[in-house]
Structure formats: structure tokens, C-alpha cells
């Protein structure tokens, strides 16, 4: 099946540049450190900010990962080559978006222990937290893949992707931060469900919408 072939291609591409993956992780950890420097060394003050810092670090690292995913396509015009085959642009999009989602999810799972260490938080509801990470990273990946395709083909590519992506994913950021914070500090009014629902709706809307629009972004 075409989608499987594309996903395999994208996952293998990621696997083939482990240096890049490690660098992106290191960037994420650096962001976590810098944010704590900005807020002061008092762990008591840092603890309530932990979920916010985690998602900010993830958001900033995602721009690197997303941009990288299309750089490999542009170097030798590999994407153009794919588009000459009888493959639908939609399959190319979803394959790339799914692979990016996996990458962001792994990144998130690796940043959580760093946050636990730096900000002294305790995670009890591991499954629920994983669920939030899954939904949140999905929300970053879908529009991010679409915008990364645009940015890599335009001038001033480095500023364009964050500039376009960040305002769009405000709901993802808000919902993920809130849900994570509630899971960590306690959720007396059972609000996590509503935030998760918001994330899921965003994901549903944007995974469909961006898939529909992708071929307009790569056509010549």
C-alpha cells in the first residue's frame, strides 16, 4: 500500500540521521534549562511551570524536526521524483505527517524525565499523560508538516515555519499545557477530559484539512 511505503521511507530517513535526532533532543533539553534559568532556581517556583516549559521546549524543537523532514526531500529533488510517480500527494503527506508525529512523540517521551528531574515533579498518571502527549504531538505534526513543505520551498525558510505554525497551534499549546499540569498537580474538577476532547477535535480537523490542501502546496 502506498501509504505504508511512504511511512517506511520517512521513518528510515529519520533512522539514517541519528546525529540529527540527538541534536534535536539536545536542543530540547537546552530549552528546558534556559527556561528554568529565566524563572529562577527556586524549585518551588518552577514546579507549577513544569508542564508549560515542557510543551514550549517541545514546540521549539518541533520546528527543527519538521524543517529537517523536508530538507531531505529538497536536496536532490526527491519529492519531485515522488510526485512524478503514480502516487497521490495525499499519501505523501500522511506518510510524512505520521513519521513526524512518531518523532515528536519520542522526543516528548524523552523530555518528560528531564522535566521530572529539573522541576521536581512526580508523574502518577502515566497512561493519561502519554495520551495527552500523543494528542498534543499529533496537533503539532499535522499543520507543521504542511507548513514545513511550504517553508522549505520558499525564501527565508527558517523564520517562516515558526511564524506560520506558532499562532495556529495556540489551542494545542494551551490544551496540552493545561491537561499536563492537571495530571501532574491534581485534577479535582475532572477537567482533563475536556482538554483532551479539544485536542482531539483540533487533531481531527487539521489532519483532514491539511491532507486535502497538501497537493496545492507541492504542485508547480
Amino acid at each position, binding site marked *: 500500500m502506498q501509504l505504508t511505503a511512504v511511512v517506511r521511507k520517512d521513518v528510515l530517513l529519520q533512522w539514517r540521521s541519528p546525529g540529527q535526532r540527538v541534536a534535536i533532543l539536545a536542543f530540547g533539553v537546552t530549552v528546558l534549562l534556559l527556561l528554568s534559568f529565566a524563572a529562577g532556581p527556586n524549585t518551588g517556583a518552577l514546579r507549577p511551570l513544569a508542564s508549560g516549559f515542557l510543551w514550549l521546549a517541545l514546540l521549539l524543537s518541533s520546528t527543527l524536526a519538521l524543517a529537517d523532514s523536508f530538507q531531505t526531500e529538497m536536496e536532490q529533488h526527491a519529492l519531485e521524483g515522488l510526485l512524478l510517480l503514480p502516487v497521490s500527494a495525499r499519501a505523501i503527506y500522511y506518510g510524512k505527517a505520521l513519521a513526524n508525529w512518531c518523532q515528536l512523540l519520542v522526543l516528548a517521551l524523552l523530555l518528560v524525565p528531564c522535566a521530572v528531574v529539573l522541576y521536581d515533579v512526580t508523574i502518577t498518571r502515566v497512561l493519561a499523560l502519554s495520551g495527552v502527549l500523543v494528542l498534543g504531538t499529533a496537533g503539532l505534526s499535522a*499543520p507543521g508538516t*504542511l507548513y514545513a513543505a*511550504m517553508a522549505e520551498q*520558499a*525564501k*527565508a525558510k527558517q*523564520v*517562516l515555519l515558526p*511564524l*506560520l505554525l*506558532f*499562532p*495556529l497551534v*495556540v*489551542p494545542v499549546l*494551551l*490544551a496540552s499545557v*493545561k491537561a499536563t499540569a492537571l495530571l501532574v498537580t491534581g485534577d479535582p474538577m475532572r477537567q482533563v477530559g*475536556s*482538554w483532551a476532547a*479539544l485536542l482531539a*477535535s*483540533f487533531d481531527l*480537523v*487539521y489532519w483532514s*484539512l*491539511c491532507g486535502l*490542501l497538501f497537493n*496545492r*502546496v507541492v*504542485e*508547480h
Partner: protein
Amino acid sequence: MKQAAPAILVGLGTLCLLSGSYYGLFVAPPERYMGDVQRIMYIHVPTAWNALLALTWAFISALVYLVRGGRAWDARLEAGIEVGVILTALLCALGAIWARPTWGVWWDWDPRLTTSAVLLVGFVGILALRHFVDDPARRATWTAVGTVVMYIDVPIVYLSVKWWNTLHQMQSTPETVATTFHWPLRVNAFGVLILMVGLLIARARIAEARLREELTDPEDESAGASNLVPGRVL
């Protein structure tokens, strides 16, 4: 007459705006709780409505462009986004000006104002995108895609900020004023609307003129005959 339409509309709109604002600023009685500060609503609310209207027009133009294409709709899209951005920027500024004397802070994270700020940055980003793409056809398509994606986000952003804000002490936001003060508000709303339509038409014309200059037609086709070597036409 048609050529002068934007100028007429701008003039008419300004007239409405001036009369409505005069009434709102000097004649209408001060609001019960907020006093004279509330008078900013006579500008703020019309700006809000029209900012959203301009961006909705941009959204519609984007959809039509994606389906039908054509220079005209790209020009309308560009106009819609620019006018929308200007009005949204004005909206945020007015919101801050209102908040300062009322709450003592410049920004109070009101859901509507916050959504406007996000919209502002989002659409400025789309204008930046336009700037960084050379090919006119690609520029138009990508702007349209970006506009559709961003616009659909608006209700989601609003909802998320609203929920986010309810966890904090909710400061009451200025709702539309009491019924006795509707008149200056309506006049101003129409004033800004007419002004905005004038600006949209003018801006779209500028965009279309620029596109026309950028996109020339291929040369006269009749030259093709003389280029073919005689006796070889099959």
C-alpha cells in the same frame, strides 16, 4: 463613477464615523459604572466586528481562489488580509487603551482580545509568506491555503482561550452597552463598514494592477506562421 467608488465610500464612511463618534464622545451620557472610559466602545466594537468581517472576506476569497483561481480573487484575498490585519492591530491597541485605566493593566487576557492577538500574528505571518514567494501563482495558492487553515482555527483558539481563562479570576469584559446607547454604536459600525469596503476595493485594485503588470500574456500567436520553415508544415 465606478472608478471613484472607493473614494466615495471612504468619504461616506468617514462622515458616518465622525458623526457617530461625535455623538458618542460628547453627547451620549457616560456609562454608569465605567464613566467616560467606556466611550472607547463606540470605536472598539465597530472595529472588532469589521476586523472579523474583513478576515471572513479573506477566507471566502481564499476558498473561491482555490476552486476557481484567477487574478481577481487573489487580489481580493490580499486586500482582505491586509485590511483585516490593520483593523485587528487597531483592535488590540484599543483593547489595551481601554484596559489600562479600567483594570490598571495593559492586557487582561480577555478571550476575545487574546484571540485577536493570535489572529494578528497569524495573518501577519501569512503576509510575510506572500513576501517571500516570487512566483505569483504559487504565492496566490499558498496564501489561500494559509488563510483557510488559519481562519478555521479562529473558533478553536477562542474556545481554548475562553476555557483557559475561566480558571483565573474572570474580569468582566465590556459587553455591548445598554440599549439607550445603541445609536452612536450603529452609526459608527456602518461608518467603519463603509470605510472598510472602500479600502478593500481600493487595495484589491492596487493588487490587481500589480498582478497585471507582473503577468504579461504570451506574444501574439500569429507570429508562429512565419517562423515555420516553408514546405515543412505537416
